[in-house]
């Protein structure tokens, strides 16, 4: 037991001190950063509404943009397919890596370090670098878009899956061990069912996320709805670009609703 007897006043003073130190550090970081990049918080915040007005003024789809609906919907469909397939393929690999890399299930700590580092690498390679790595070798095609999404998703899902598995109660797995189950049985009968619903949530979330990232990947690969956005955006057809944003938003919200439904149904 904690037997260090303090008065509550002392305790609260200590707690307040700790909180203040944290706050001061955070404010310090903020102010330093502000100075470093010459950012003016208040004048900037004051401009927020003006930006939104500008957005609505320029990006509201007009009648003309309806004529672009055909190609937009087709590309949106292709993009959806690519986001789904890249997420699914990535999640298969991520699952294997996560099982090999999670603290509770790793066969060796070496795997753990290698996988953690590898996932971090994939997550932190910037899009421009992906563009160079992939475009030069794989040219501009759906496939390149698929690869780019695949690698980025792999990085994120490996981390998410690893943490999900590590959050599981280790004792439950021991219970299976005690039954005489071997490693693979423990994983398949214990880890997977226990983590299934969280893992599914992550997969569904990643599909949604990849759809949004399609704009970035589209720039990179000249395909999908992201390319169209870039095309309309750069040729100053803001209404059409706005239509794309609107459609992506609607699709994302639909996906979110569907995934909530699915998660509820499989719980």
């Amino acid at each position: 037991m904690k037997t260090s007897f303090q008065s509550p006043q002392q305790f609260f003073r200590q707690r307040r001190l700790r909180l203040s130190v944290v706050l001061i550090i955070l404010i310090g970081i903020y102010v330093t950063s502000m100075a470093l990049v010459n950012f003016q918080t208040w004048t900037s915040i004051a401009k927020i509404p003006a930006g939104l007005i500008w957005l609505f003024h320029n990006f509201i789809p007009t009648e003309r943009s309806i004529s672009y609906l055909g190609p937009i919907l087709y590309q949106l469909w292709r993009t959806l397919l690519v986001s789904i397939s890249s997420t699914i393929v990535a999640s298969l690999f991520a699952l294997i890596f996560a099982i090999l890399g999670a603290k509770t299930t790793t066969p060796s700590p070496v795997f753990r370090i290698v996988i953690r580092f590898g996932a971090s690498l994939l997550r932190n390679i910037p899009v421009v670098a992906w563009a160079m790595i992939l475009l030069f070798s794989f040219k501009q095609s759906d496939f390149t878009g698929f690869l780019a999404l695949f690698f980025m998703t792999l990085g994120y899902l490996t981390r998410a899956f690893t943490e999900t598995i590590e959050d599981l109660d280790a004792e439950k797995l021991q219970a299976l061990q005690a039954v005489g189950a071997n490693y693979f049985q423990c994983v398949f009968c214990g880890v997977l069912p226990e983590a299934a619903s969280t893992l599914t949530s992550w997969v569904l979330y990643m599909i949604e996320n990849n759809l949004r990232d399609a704009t970035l990947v589209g720039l990179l690969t000249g395909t999908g709805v992201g390319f169209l956005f870039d095309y309309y955006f750069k040729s100053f057809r803001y209404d059409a670009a706005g239509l794309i944003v609107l459609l992506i938003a609607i699709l994302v919200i639909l996906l979110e609703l569907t995934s909530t439904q699915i998660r509820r149904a499989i719980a």
Partner: protein
Amino acid sequence: MIENSQPKPKTIQPVAPQTKHVSLVTRPRKILRGVLAGLAIITIYSLATLNNGNLVFADAFKSLGVNLNAMFLHPGVGQDTFGQLLRALVTSVSLAMLTTLLGAVIAFFIAVGAARNLAPSWLATTIKAVMAFIRAIPTILWVLIYSVVMGLGASAAVVGLTFHSVAYLVKAYSESIEETSQDTIEALKASGVGFWPIVFQAILPSIVPALLSWTFIRFEINFANAVAVGAAAGADDIGYFLFMAGSFYFNFHEVGLIVYLLLAVAIVLELVSMKLRGHYLKHN
């Protein structure tokens, strides 16, 4: 002690079998299988119809190897000096810091309104829909908007990037808030405690670890975003050097070096976040 009636379970899906065949499949399981099968079919279909641009895979992977070799095994500063790159890196980190801190504070207050266990359902739904919409707007567009309204520079980049931060964190935070048990909230309500004291005294302490880990994830994303589009607003960050090295000079060596710098930041970040999380979970 007096025996109460044995309660009957609400759901007994397959009828308790008299026959030899016993099925393990329950309805949720069937749905799960259906969903997985559906996703598998979509995946196979889209992989089959994927336009691979008549790629010769052997060549592609060979060239990939060459490029990766140039990037990662022979990194170099190109035309810039290491000092310039470091200065730009600091700018990028600062951008990420600002957007994360600003985003986190704003997002927490909005998240309170977006959590179904605190706010009325219509408000929560509206906020969540608006946030989903904000997230669907590409980052570059936000940066464009604010460089028009505020002029070019870091301020536009920060404000533009903060929008995504807020939208993302509102979702994450509000879900964390929704996970705090309704009972504990009710316990305070029952003793006459008002709304905001409950938020700060009951909910906030309960979700600190979750908030921490979401905020750090977002920091990582903000850093990536700052690198990706900060340069478009003329923020003079590492993204500018990366863009020039990548899209103008095709200097694989410099891109490799910049990637290493970015990774270094990411690793430091990961270590800090692990330490903090561990510290919080253990210390208290």
